[in-house]
């Protein structure tokens, strides 16, 4: 995948001076481009990872793919935008959007999903698709369907490293940091707390958990709330320093979904790795082959994963040997 312009050292010594400088310059530009592609992939990948993680959290606890995840994140980002435009600081908008995500997730689970849980799987799929469309329409009614710019709390100019401007901005660093913090917090919650244990137990077997006194319904609501909060975070990070409109999350839904499938829908670690792999791959495709191929590449990855390793890279349930 690295550009094939690297010249063997031995060859360079026999060449004339200007040519060497030309090659060195080309080499440096190639390196710079590769670095930029990689950094861009990393920061995009972090956001895809957050989105994929939100999908995985819900899949693990309720066996439902939440197609409305993107719309929910979009909606809470608009709430943040409304606050910021009314003069509040970015951070107020940021915090309120995350809390709104928490609340929206809990409400959606309690009021809508609870009614289709345990029923035919297709019902839940249709319901989340319906929510996806309904929330987008509602956002267009409430906030308008035009492009609006969303502020970023940190600079959007790349750092200068040794006189070279690289494609890593302070906002990128913030995005990566925010995703890492949220992931570590989730790991700590699931691994080391009693609530996390109860949530894991109800994800594995609701009936047995109930018998042991776990309030399974409350755990499911909490799971949706947490997932929606992570989804809101990815919405905010995608929007930062860019334009928002009711459908701005649509591409992320596709990439995040592919990332989740790539990692195996059951594995949070897989979602994170899948997100990073997706970010890197799409950035490479965009940087070297052309940005119009990105969506195609994402779908090609999805098809390949489903054909070759349908359970994903990180699924625990290995194929049984007979």
């Amino acid at each position: 995948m690295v550009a094939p312009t690297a010249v063997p050292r031995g060859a360079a010594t026999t060449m004339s001076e200007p040519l060497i400088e030309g090659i060195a310059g080309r080499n440096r530009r190639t390196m710079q481009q590769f670095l930029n592609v990689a950094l861009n992939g990393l920061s995009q990948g972090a956001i895809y990872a957050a989105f994929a993680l939100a999908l995985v959290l819900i899949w693990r606890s309720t066996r439902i793919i939440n197609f409305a995840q993107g719309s929910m994140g979009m909606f809470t980002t608009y709430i943040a935008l409304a606050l910021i435009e009314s003069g509040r600081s970015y951070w107020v908008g940021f915090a309120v959007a995350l809390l709104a995500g928490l609340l929206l997730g809990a409400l959606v689970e309690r009021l809508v999903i609870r009614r289709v849980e345990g029923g035919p799987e297709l019902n839940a799929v249709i319901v989340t698709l319906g929510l996806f469309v309904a929330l987008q329409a509602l956002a267009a009614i409430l906030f308008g369907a035009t492009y609006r710019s969303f502020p970023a709390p940190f600079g959007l100019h790349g750092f200068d490293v040794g006189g070279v401007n690289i494609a890593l901005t302070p906002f990128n660093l913030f995005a990566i940091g925010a995703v890492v913090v949220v992931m570590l917090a989730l790991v700590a919650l699931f691994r080391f707390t009693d609530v996390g244990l109860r949530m894991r137990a109800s994800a594995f077997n609701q009936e047995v958990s109930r018998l042991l006194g776990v309030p399974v319904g409350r755990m499911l609501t909490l799971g949706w709330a947490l997932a929606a909060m992570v989804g809101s975070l990815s919405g905010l990070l995608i929007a930062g320093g860019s334009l928002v409109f009711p459908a701005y999350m649509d591409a992320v839904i596709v990439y995040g979904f592919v990332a989740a499938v790539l990692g195996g829908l059951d594995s949070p670690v897989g979602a994170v790795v899948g997100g990073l792999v997706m970010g890197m791959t799409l950035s490479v495709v965009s940087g070297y082959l052309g940005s119009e191929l990105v969506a195609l590449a994402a779908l090609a990855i999805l098809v390949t994963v489903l054909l070759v390793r349908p359970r994903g890279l990180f699924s625990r349930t290995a194929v049984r040997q007979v």
Partner: protein
Amino acid sequence: MASPEQPDTHRSNTGTAGASPGSGPLFEAEGVSVRFGGLVALDDASLSVAPHRVHGVIGPNGAGKTTLFNVCCGFVRPSSGRLTWRGSAIPELRPHRLAGMGIARTLQGVGLFPGLSVVDNVMVGADHRRRAGFLSALFALPRSDTDERRLRAIAMAALRELDADSYADRFPASLPYPVQKRVAMARALAAEPELLLLDEPASGLGYDEITELGALVRTLATRMSVVVVDHHMDLVMSICDRITVLDFGRVVATGTPEEVRDDPAVIDAYLGEDARSPERSRDD
């Protein structure tokens, strides 16, 4: 306590004498009927469990033993009948309230959480004994942290009692079946219940393990009441203080093992018409 549909004079009626009004039964199901569509799974069945007694429920396949169990733990709502816990009626029994009331149940098979380590599995069983509130646990406040250690200690103690503490960090799938059964039992005990419902605890166990299980259940009776549903007649006859016999959803006899063993209705319904001695009934 015998069902009114059985007017013949078998001796199961002596069973009613067991529940003296002074001590009172710990748990009682009276006149419970369950219908699944047109099928009558339980017909006016009753069960009365005295404190610190081991109560067996036996009957041929399809007699309604598991349904009765499911009614007792709230999985199945009876179409008629009354459940009483410590003398007061339970209006609506919900499974997740069970642990808080002091009732624990094991399942046919093991029902362990596959992705949780053995000690985590048992900790879920001890869960309702936590003291920290929901929010402080969510944000891992210090109080919740000490709670966490306490629950872990309870879980380890339960595993030690079942001689399974050396498997604490393993995952259920990597353990032999009898060990999994012991872990499931430890999980039920970690709740420190007053009433333990054991659904086929001996299934899949070998002879020695069944003997150990019997000894364990007798020890447990010093701390709690136990209800056992099982096919192993030797086990049930040797460990139970009282036995309720179901047939086609009806209680055909209730009494001590000796009374039940000699009851002609039981022999007809369950042991087969020629099998006069209980040894014949061993199904392995």
